[in-house]
């Protein structure tokens, strides 16, 4: 037996919006992700050419060399819209706070010893600047890209990169007793230490990339898959006795990589699969940026683990991943 509350049943005239129904092939109930995403960006009848880029309309498919018949093909497997995105991140952040509390209560970083602390300051903390540069790139793709299916997750990703830069900063503040001195030292390393110059050059070069989808490939398969994975996954040995503590404090990054990677993989795969021309372009871009990221990561790898193995491992994993997406490298 069940409890039955009587409610009035009113017959709806239609299930969803016209543009959604046309995509679903009929008037069927749509998800919140679909209604919040599909066809919400303007596509026609723009009034003025931008003063800052008069060669294009505000939203213009010509801002990348790849061509899609429909930019709403690369959908987000996470089905994120603003609400579900924020709730997902707030949940992940709860774990971050618990982990920080755990580490701080037990002074796990303090007990790790001066050598390990110094290692973290020069080897881990500067990555917050790489996250910040990645934030700039994702904001750029959001503003410059075409179709909300791709651009909305990009502003989420930009926020994620800023959030991770701030988690790394918090690690610094734990290390330096909330004085900020470790962050100053790490910034100096980012700007001048040979280990980081490859990474810094790479991200600065990406800042001037005009083709937004090429930038997407550079960021997700170059920066994320090679450089971030190099430090968070393949460089773990560098933290010595603090390895487990660092793993706890960067759990967010590991979870995020796994989750965001699913989305960025679908985007790259779908765009490459559209045509032989797209496949050739995306493959070439992936090869170029993975190679460049490997090159950029070598001195960092040597600094962290004593040889180039972490850079090689990260780049090889990125290549395998790219091949798995149908790219020819």
């Amino acid at each position, binding site marked *: 037996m069940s409890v039955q509350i009587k409610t009035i049943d009113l017959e709806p005239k239609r299930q969803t919006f016209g543009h959604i129904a046309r995509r679903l092939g009929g008037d069927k109930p749509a998800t919140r992700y679909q209604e919040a995403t599909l066809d919400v960006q303007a596509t026609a009848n723009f009034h003025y050419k931008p003063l800052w880029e008069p060669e294009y309309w505000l939203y213009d498919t010509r801002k990348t060399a790849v061509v899609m018949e429909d930019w709403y093909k690369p959908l987000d497997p996470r089905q994120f819209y603003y609400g579900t995105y924020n709730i997902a991140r707030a*949940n992940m952040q709860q774990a971050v706070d618990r982990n920080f509390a755990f580490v701080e209560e037990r002074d796990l970083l303090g007990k790790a010893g001066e050598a390990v602390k110094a290692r973290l300051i020069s080897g881990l903390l500067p990555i917050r600047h790489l996250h910040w540069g990645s934030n700039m790139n994702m904001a750029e793709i959001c503003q410059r890209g075409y179709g909300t299916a791709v651009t909305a997750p990009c502003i989420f990703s930009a926020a994620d990169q800023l959030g991770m830069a701030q988690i790394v900063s918090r690690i610094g503040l734990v290390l330096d007793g909330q004085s900020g001195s470790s962050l100053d030292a790490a*910034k100096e390393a980012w700007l001048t230490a040979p280990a980081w110059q490859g990474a810094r050059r790479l991200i600065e070069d990406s800042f001037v990339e005009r083709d937004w989808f090429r930038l997407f490939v550079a960021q997700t398969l170059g920066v994320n898959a090679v450089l971030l994975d190099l430090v968070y996954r393949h460089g773990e040995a560098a933290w010595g006795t603090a390895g487990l503590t660092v793993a706890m404090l960067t759990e967010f990054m590991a979870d995020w990589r796994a989750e965001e990677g699913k989305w960025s993989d679908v985007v790259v795969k779908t765009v490459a699969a559209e045509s032989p021309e797209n496949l050739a372009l995306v493959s070439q871009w992936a090869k170029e940026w993975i190679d460049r990221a490997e090159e950029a990561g070598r001195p960092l790898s040597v600094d962290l683990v004593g040889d180039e193995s972490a850079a090689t491992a990260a780049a090889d994993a990125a290549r395998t991943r790219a091949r798995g997406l149908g790219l020819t490298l």
Partner: protein
Amino acid sequence: MAPKKLGLKQRYAHMTRGLDWETTYQPMDAVFPYDTFEGIKIKDWSAWEDPFRLTMDSYWKFQAEKERKLYAVLDAFAQNNGQTGVSDGRYINVVKLFLTGVSPLEYQAHRGFAFTGRHLRGAGPRIACQMQSLDELRHLQTQIHTISHYNKFFDGIGEFPHMHDRVWYLSVPKSFFDDARAAGPFEFMIAIGFAFEYLLTNLLFVPFMSGAAYNGDMSTVTFGFSAQSDESRHMTLGIEVIKFLLEQHPDNLPIVQKWVDKWFWRGFRVLGLVAMMMDYMLPKKVMSWKEAWEIYFTEAGGSLFQDLERYGLKVPKYADVATEAAEHISHQNWAVFYQYSHAAAFHTWMPDKEHLDWLSEKYPNTFDKYYRPRWEMWAEMEKEGKRFYNPSLPQLCQVCQIPMAYTEPGDPTKIAFRCTEVAGETYHFCSDGCKDIFDAEPEKYIQSWLPVHQIFQGNCGGATVPDVLNWYRMNVGADNMDYVGSPDDRLWSEWHAAKTREAV
């Protein structure tokens, strides 16, 4: 000695602008190519005062909590058929106007703040802009989810993005935002951050939300409350931007003043739709447009400009004209929609006697003299079966794109016309304000996608009204025409009859 602990402000600086660095492998001017051409001079970006201090973790926590609550209300509203509880079926037309006219602007704001969130050289403002970009995406998406339920029952909502890009009166808000987005990053910040979000927000966003509250639209009003804390962040960003620009260099003042003048007038013209909504479309009135203007512009705006006076900034040009026009614009706009009801995606109706009396009371200087007689005449014609429709296509202002129906300042019997000639072509304007905007940037405004011109040029599906409506994806006989006798009206009456039966 223990190291000195950071204060909150310094800590926040480490978490945000401390992440930023001067690039050396690529020149800064190549990394930030757009923030110099407008002529704004920034001596020291580090002087930027963060208008709020949110790190991403607190942003996520705070926003997630609001979203959980909002969606709980939206679900309950749908489950309980909350749409049957609004004041009157006519009210839904406000929701239609909002989703087709305003929500797409939220999207434009989202992408526009992503642009400034990447391309302003200072890291502090960039982060504030990125958070606003996220918020504006939120507003679009939660508005769609809120109104999605109304779309299941009422007409005129289902093609909102398609219509926003095409329908004649929707080119008014669309061109407004295209204009801001086509401008440089600093002008965008003044246009949207300051003029729209700070100066005029209480005349745009708030009337819709108060209207929802007064008319029993529980889902929209819940959205409104939920967005309030976002909006107050947006306001603090807008005011910080203008102060920062004015403090940075005296040469910025004339540029900023020109933008304030322009965006005040541009915004004022868009607000004509809100004026009409408040005075004619809300079954339960919140206040008259004139009252809203007095409170939110004359008084609140007045003290704002008093505060900004120390930077040399003056009250926007033509503020006095706008104040005088507050007596007229709602009546003139509703009259336009009444005449062109066959081409609008929401319903119009003849104000009844009680409504006319309310307008007479709220507009003692003008309503009985100029507008009431016209409504009474048109009501008479309706009674005789000769409901008045205007069969011709109106001429549109080249800048604000509103049909030329506004009158001369000081003479409500005479339609205002202005024009300018550029390269042998004559361009027409509704006002001095719009003409000034054109004359300052003719290369921009000769590009305007004017719906009526486009129809004449054959770019809108054909030469006849049915062709054009078809191209708009307007469901003729359902989306357009008078409320009385519409499918919306029939549905509403059925629900109402069912409710009364149950009550007996």
